[in-house]
């Protein structure tokens, strides 16, 4: 970690699916308490970067450094989990507090339950704790998944296209929530909705096999508005 305010640093990271390399020479860093937009075409490698950060897949070359004491909370794409699964909002968020090491007869402590309740309140779902996941709207499901990441005590949250299946209003509410969260968390969010995500981002990474870093968002917005980007 070169600078004190960096919480994540990728250095020449490469990952391939068999013979097809999704990303090569990916070098960038994420600064503490900022929101970075991960943008780029489909198949460009956005989800690969999110999954590498979450630890779902392991990089082949280069290095990924995470600041000591930092913990990454993962919010997968809604298609990655079963939305018909019989689970309430509270139970789903509680899973975020689960210890990594498998312990027989695990029961949740009072503190873990309190942590889950706080996370639910933080994403604006207080009062909906006992609703089944399958009774929620798309926006509420995304909020539940964010609450699960918050309940895990993560200071870095990575989200894989959380706005992909949301209508305009639900997406606007989600961006508002992310804007609030970035005051205390470092956020990396993959999105296709450039017009909206760039409004709340502090930096952006354009991914298309390699990573281009944009610390100046207004410059990127101008490119997007001029139709140069994508």
């Amino acid at each position, binding site marked *: 970690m070169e600078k004190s305010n960096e919480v994540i640093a990728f250095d020449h990271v490469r990952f391939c699916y068999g013979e097809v390399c999704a990303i090569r020479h990916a070098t960038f860093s994420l600064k503490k308490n900022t929101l970075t937009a991960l943008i780029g075409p489909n198949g460009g490698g956005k989800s690969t970067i999110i999954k590498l950060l979450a630890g779902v897949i392991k990089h082949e070359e280069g290095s990924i450094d995470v600041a000591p004491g930092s913990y*990454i909370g993962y919010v997968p794409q809604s298609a*990655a989990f079963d939305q018909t699964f019989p689970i309430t909002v509270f139970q789903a968020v509680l*899973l975020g507090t689960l210890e990594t090491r*498998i312990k027989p007869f695990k029961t949740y402590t009072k503190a873990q339950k309190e942590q889950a309740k706080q996370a639910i309140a933080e994403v604006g779902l207080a009062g909906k704790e006992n609703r089944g996941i399958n009774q929620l709207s798309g926006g509420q499901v995304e909020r539940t998944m964010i609450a699960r990441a918050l309940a895990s005590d993560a200071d870095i949250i990575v989200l894989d296209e959380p706005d992909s299946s949301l209508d305009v209003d639900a997406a606007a509410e989600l961006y508002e929530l992310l804007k609030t969260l970035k005051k205390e968390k470092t956020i990396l969010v993959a999105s296709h909705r450039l017009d909206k995500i760039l409004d709340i981002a502090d930096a952006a990474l354009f991914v298309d096999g390699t990573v281009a870093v944009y610390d100046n968002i207004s410059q990127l917005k101008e490119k997007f508005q001029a139709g140069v980007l994508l």
Partner: protein
Amino acid sequence: MIRAIFQYSFMQNALAAALLASIVTGIIGTIAIEKKLISMSGGIAHASFGGIGLGYLAGFEPIWGGLAFAIGSSLLISKISKSKRVNADTMTGILWSFGMALGILFISLAPGYMPDMTSYLFGDILAVSSSAVVIMVFFTAAIAAVFVMFYAYLNAYLFDEEYALASGINTRALELMIYLMIPAGIIVLIKIVGVILTIALMTVPVSIAKLFFKSFGKVVVASMLISAVFSLLGLTASYYVNISSGVCIVVLASLVYLVIMLTRQRVQSRMHTNKQHKECQHQKTKD
């Protein structure tokens, strides 16, 4: 029939078998449905018939052969599901028919008259022996113990495997647990509903429970109770009309599921219409 339960040991065995099978149904049925392993479970159940046939040919307890084939198939499908070269669904189909064919082959090769395999194919709750009940108790206890011990982690894994992996939970160990619990559970169910009808007992009670409950634990317990009701009704029917217990249970369970589904849809659509009507009236009063 109640008097018969007190009088005859075969009825006591049948009752014990029905209740044990219900516990297994609630656990492995819910796991298989939530992990989308129903088709694989069907493959395992049918593949186990090869082991049952081998037991007849080699002269050992057929259920142990069935268990060995079921576990072998389950682990093979688990391994293949990670391979990009072979499709796990295709392998399930192959094991499904290969196991059945092997079973018939082994039984045909066994000396003497070909035994009646109906009880293994369609289940015969009234023919469950005391030694079979002991085997069923062992497997049911093992499955229930693993499920209770690791409930929180199985819940996390079944709901969102990718998140569990990202959190650092040993998902491989949980996967292995599941791929061993399913064949062990299938061996318990085979005695009641047979190789061919096992999937129905694994799916119908869970599907009914899922219509009413929104928590994983409640679905498991409700599935056990629903399965117990169907199994006891199947046992009663089997006792009085002398038809295979598996057939009675599956026909009854499937009909009940269909009736609940249709009734629920009608009630829900009526409730929706009433709600809209009330909202309309409320709006008119306001205007």
